[in-house]
């Protein structure tokens, strides 16, 4: 187990190094100059050069990469070109939006998907199963930004129950902040829930076909107990895998939903930073997300061992 963990960590670290190179080099070739953008059409070339010097943009490529990479190791991501504040502060400001949003969406998705999956698996082949899975198919096919638009018009414009977008900040109370996150979380969660419920159902059906379940049933264990006590636990591995993937997706893939609700999250930060050519921000946020994906995947693998004791001894 330790050797396995060590190997995984090493591979993760190597992936990060390669990723940092890819990201850095890719963004080097983005056309446009943050200094010129800042100063606009009236400024002279000499002034733009001066600002580039101040921003540290005129140093050689390799020096800038090493500076940045060294900073990453100590969680010092450098200073934003446009905002001229430490990048880490920007990330922290955005994480308090993106992280709760991803967690709420994941929780919603799980709370919807697992019961639906159980329900459908228990009534496999019956009308209720078919209906539930038909709805799930539609949910999978629904573009989440379109769903988000519909939600805004029903719940914000028509019913006026929640704000149409924006984020008041946690400083103004927990409830207003949560209210601002409900619709985007729901828009994100529905397609994910549809996928997860299908996976849950399939995994359960797989498990229900196995011998020990048949034995439990033959012994007269009630259906509900079979489902909850044995089947669900053993069906958790594929479910957890998907949930891990979904969490990583939710953290990074909210760009479009953040646009619909103009939430100041990580996705919008990247979007904005790309258009403003604030490359150091883009690079750092992307690295953060890549690292998150790697860590989440590792945690998912480890959680297999917790769910299924058989795997604990294998490696």
């Amino acid at each position: 187990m330790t050797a396995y963990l060590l190997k995984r960590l090493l591979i993760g670290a190597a992936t990060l190094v390669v990723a940092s190179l890819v990201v850095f080099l890719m963004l080097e070739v983005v056309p446009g100059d943050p200094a010129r953008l800042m100063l606009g059409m009236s400024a002279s070339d000499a002034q733009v050069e001066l600002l580039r010097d101040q921003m540290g943009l005129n140093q050689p490529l390799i020096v800038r990469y090493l500076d940045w990479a060294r900073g990453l190791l100590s969680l010092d991501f450098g200073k934003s070109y446009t905002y001229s504040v430490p990048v880490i502060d920007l990330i922290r400001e955005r994480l308090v939006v993106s992280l709760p949003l991803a967690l709420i969406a994941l929780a919603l998705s799980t709370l919807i998907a697992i019961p639906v999956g159980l329900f459908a698996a228990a009534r496999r082949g019956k009308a209720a199963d078919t209906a539930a899975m038909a709805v799930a198919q539609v949910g999978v096919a629904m573009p989440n930004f379109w769903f988000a638009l519909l939600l805004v018009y029903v719940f914000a414009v028509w019913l006026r129950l929640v704000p149409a977008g924006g984020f008041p900040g946690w400083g103004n109370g927990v409830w207003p902040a949560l209210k601002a996150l409900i619709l985007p979380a729901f828009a994100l969660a529905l397609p994910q829930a549809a996928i997860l419920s299908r996976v849950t159902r399939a995994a359960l059906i797989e498990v229900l076909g196995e011998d020990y379940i048949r034995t439990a049933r033959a012994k007269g264990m009630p259906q509900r107990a079979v489902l909850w006590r044995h089947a669900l636990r053993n069906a958790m591995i594929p479910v957890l895998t998907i949930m891990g993937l979904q969490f990583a997706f939710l953290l990074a893939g909210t760009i479009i939903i953040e646009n619909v609700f103009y939430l100041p999250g990580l996705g919008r930060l990247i979007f904005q930073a790309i258009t403003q050519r604030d490359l150091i921000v883009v690079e750092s946020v992307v690295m953060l997300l890549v690292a998150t994906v790697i860590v989440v995947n590792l945690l998912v693998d480890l959680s297999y061992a917790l769910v299924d004791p058989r795997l604990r001894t294998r490696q």
Partner: protein
Amino acid sequence: MSDAMPQKPETLAELIGRALANRSFVIGLAITLLIAAMALVSFFWTPYDVTRLIVADRMQPPSWKHWFGTDHFGRDVLSMIMIGARNSIAVAFVAVGIGMGVGVPLGCWAAARGGWIDEMLMRFNDLVFAFPALLSAVMITAVFGPSAINAIIAIGIFNVPVFARVARAGALSIWPREYILAARAAGKGPSRITLEHVLPNIANLLLVQGTIQFALGILAEAGLSYVGLGTQPPMASWGRMLFDAQTLMMVAPWLALFPGCAILLAVLGLNLLGDGIADIFDPRTRRRA
């Protein structure tokens, strides 16, 4: 797939019969064919010419003249949906092609060789998977400029590891089979075995994955175009239409309704088709049937 393969090959007629009895497959195929037909027809004919903007006719609600109404430039929405179908299919098709064309050989190669080649491939897969796909697509289009072609490339790149993984897993399960051992004994090399024995036996897996990625490709194209990074005007795109429509939800709701439904329908059709194909080829369901 474990035991059924080489024993008693069923006839094509039997296969078709089984396929037609599968509800997912039939519905999925019908929807997919409808969308494909729409796209095909759009090459020869659309109700109106969408490259000519007739601003005076703008934002007309659905009527007999314009079934789906007109947009903010006076273009016929039905015509745009038809051309949008062509665009979505083209983007998703090429993206899947890139993914298959690169990923499948890589996966088969890794399975045939094993060892460090296999290890490298899997690490490369991990690397690509570690990049959030949508985010990377946004970066790629920022670097190379927003266009349909760059959207295709961005989506295609992320299809590569998917197909590599599926092909590798499928191939690994084929290699220990007896008929492969026989082929090796007959002196066939790994590439010939892959071509003659492995690929035909994992084709159904790849087909299923292909429909799934096709559907995801349509969603991805719509998403990228919706944020302005995908298909550019004057080419019509469903995502782009939604982008244009979103400010007009109260004034002209049909502008947001029809493209959204088109995306939903296309993705739904493909997913059902994929499920159907998977069911048809799944030996367990076959035994049951």
